[in-house]
């Protein structure tokens, strides 16, 4: 009798199990180098996001009386050939890098690769073949020359498109639309409002529904939040000169950055599809969406994280490389690629080496930090016996 009571007490006591995420975070925190890398990345991102606040000068403020000055108190990194403050240019460049990486990660790495990877692995058959063959074509293309081709040829088209969008959904056009209460601009606002409601509802429901049914609410909620953020970012970026460059670049980069992720996710889904819990869920009548979202997605998310951390560095590198080659972001929009390409010719190196050192060190540190973190995350999520 006594034993039965004890057993029941044991059963009723809520069992505390550390979630896999917490375990992973704990493992990561123990790696000192990874934490340093993470801090570096966070600082870089904060500096970039807060560029309008932090930067002592604007990125296009010229001071022709003080060109090519060596570092001093008023210009800690010196000034370039137009007298623009190099420190401010570096800070604003971080912002460019962040915008391009984020947009590309969102479209190329998350939406395209996760969506297509899950679909391809779970649906199989013709869908799988179609997606994977398309991916094969993209993967077999030499990415850099293709990106150069796209950047060099499509720019006028992108500029036109952005101008058109700006005149239709830019803040001024929207303000006018609110007053008129008609036309496609007003419809755009309505869609945005509707999405906000769906997103808020999804997020609320996610908290209210409790852990078991969260998966169902997660999809519309997350989708709406992503779409809103995206639309709003799109809308806000129009004000910045050089918006067309951003769009062109992240569009082109997305095309080439989804394949690797989609392949890995697909193969993981193929393996997971045979596992007992998926078969059990299927036999209990769970729909495709439920299986995809609440069973498969959580189990491939470690791979997604590792993949994203790896491609963050690669995308940032591509942005800098393309700008260096003159087909990425264009002057006056600052970018590390432009800063380095301005400082790289030998005559400049001979007389003004400081112009190279600061942006180059910033890029090198960021890349190293991305790689260190990616390596550590790989260890954390896919622990193997060494």
């Amino acid at each position, binding site marked *: 009798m006594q034993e039965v009571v004890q057993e029941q007490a044991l059963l009723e006591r809520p069992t505390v199990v550390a979630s896999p995420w917490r375990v992973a975070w704990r493992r990561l925190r123990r790696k000192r180098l990874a934490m340093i890398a993470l801090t570096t990345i966070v600082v870089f991102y904060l500096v970039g996001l807060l560029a309008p606040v932090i930067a002592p000068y604007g990125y296009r403020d010229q001071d022709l009386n003080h060109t090519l000055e060596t570092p001093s108190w008023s210009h800690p990194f010196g000034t370039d050939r137009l007298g623009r403050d190099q420190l401010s240019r570096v800070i604003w460049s971080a912002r460019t890098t962040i915008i391009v990486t984020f947009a590309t990660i969102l479209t190329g790495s998350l939406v395209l690769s996760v969506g297509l990877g899950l679909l391809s692995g779970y649906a199989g058959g013709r869908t799988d073949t179609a997606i994977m063959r398309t991916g094969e074509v993209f993967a077999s293309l030499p990415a850099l020359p293709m990106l150069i081709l796209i*950047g060099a040829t499509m720019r006028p088209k992108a500029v036109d498109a952005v101008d058109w969008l700006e005149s239709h959904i830019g803040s001024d056009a929207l303000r006018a639309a609110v007053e008129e209460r008609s036309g496609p601009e007003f419809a755009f606002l309505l869609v945005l409002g509707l999405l906000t409601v769906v997103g808020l509802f999804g997020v609320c429901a996610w908290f209210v529904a409790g852990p078991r049914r969260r998966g169902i609410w997660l999809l519309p909620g997350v989708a709406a939040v992503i779409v809103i953020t995206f639309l709003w970012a799109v809308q806000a970026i129009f004000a910045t000169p050089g918006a067309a460059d951003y769009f062109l670049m992240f569009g082109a980069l997305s095309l080439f950055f989804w394949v690797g992720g989609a392949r890995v996710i697909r193969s993981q889904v193929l393996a997971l599809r045979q596992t007992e819990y998926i078969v059990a869920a299927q036999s209990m009548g769970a729909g495709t969406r439920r299986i995809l979202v609440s069973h498969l997605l959580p189990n491939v998310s470690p791979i997604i994280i590792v993949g994203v951390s790896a491609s963050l560095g690669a995308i940032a590198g591509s942005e800098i490389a393309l700008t260096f080659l003159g087909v990425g972001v264009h002057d006056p929009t600052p970018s590390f690629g432009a800063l380095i390409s301005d400082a790289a010719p030998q005559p400049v190196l001979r007389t003004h080496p400081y112009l190279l050192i600061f942006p180059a060190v910033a890029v090198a540190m960021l890349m190293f930090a991305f790689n260190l973190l990616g390596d550590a995350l790989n260890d954390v999520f896919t622990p193997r016996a060494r």
Partner: protein
Amino acid sequence: MQGLLGYTLRRLLWLPIILFAVSFIAFTITRLGPGDYVDVLAGPRVDEEAKERLREETGLNDPFYQQYAEYMEGVLTERDFGKSFTIYRGVDVWDIIWPRMLVSIQVGLIALFITFLAGIPLGLFAALRQGTALDPLSIGTFLLFQSIPVLVALPFLVLLFVVKLEWIPATGWGGPRVDVGPQTIALGIFTKHIILPTIVLSLPGMAGVARLVRATTLSVLGEDYVRTARAKGLPGLQVVGRHVARNALLPLVTVIGLSFITLLEGAFFVETILGIPGIGQLGYQAATSRDYNVILALVLILAFTFVVANIVIDVAYTLIDPRVRYGEPK
């Protein structure tokens, strides 16, 4: 169809399809992207009538698929990639690319050679020192070298070796000249000009190879047959040479393709910064001066090389390592 032959055939069947897709996408982008193609072709200050004549002459009024078919026919039968617009106005694109390819190949081959020559021993060494203080140090150094982009590392090296230390006289290209048809090229591999590009191009690849070799060596070191070799009293060096290295180096075959890509992408920056007249520099010039025919030809040639190289490497790998299954698991 099963077996190596079937696998090779299946891969080869894909070749024309992929090449068609690549060429069609690239052609479409070049012809439809830059607004009016004739504006670039004709240059500034040309009246409407002359433009219309040019359109008729170059076949721009033909249906799009016909333009594509004619272009590809020219490419496949006579290596006719059209003419350059801006860099060398009116010169055949192939005559521009061919000598420059030979220059890039010189640099690329040396760099590829050094990548593996230095990377393999470094990786083996790091693996054998696992657990000592050298281990984290070497991993960190490899990762550092692998993560610094070429376009960041190169100006630094120029600053150090050319400007400050003055060990290497100046950048550029030179050496004994060889006649290769339309023009002569310099064999820079016999001069000091090869030093800087080789270093900067092989550093990231070398670090990558070293990391891979270290990882595979560590997994091989744990195998039973290595323990057996040790147990029967084989000297350490022979264990590494005969049993460990042979098995640990197999996966390197797959990396050759990857290092090839890294080298090629690096060439764009190295040749531009150092002023080496190869295809990387040409690509940069073509991109900045909007010479679409040159860019298109470069993309087609590089894509073809990539696809073929990847197939050769995959087939070679299945030949070398019989444990690898052909194609995807059923």
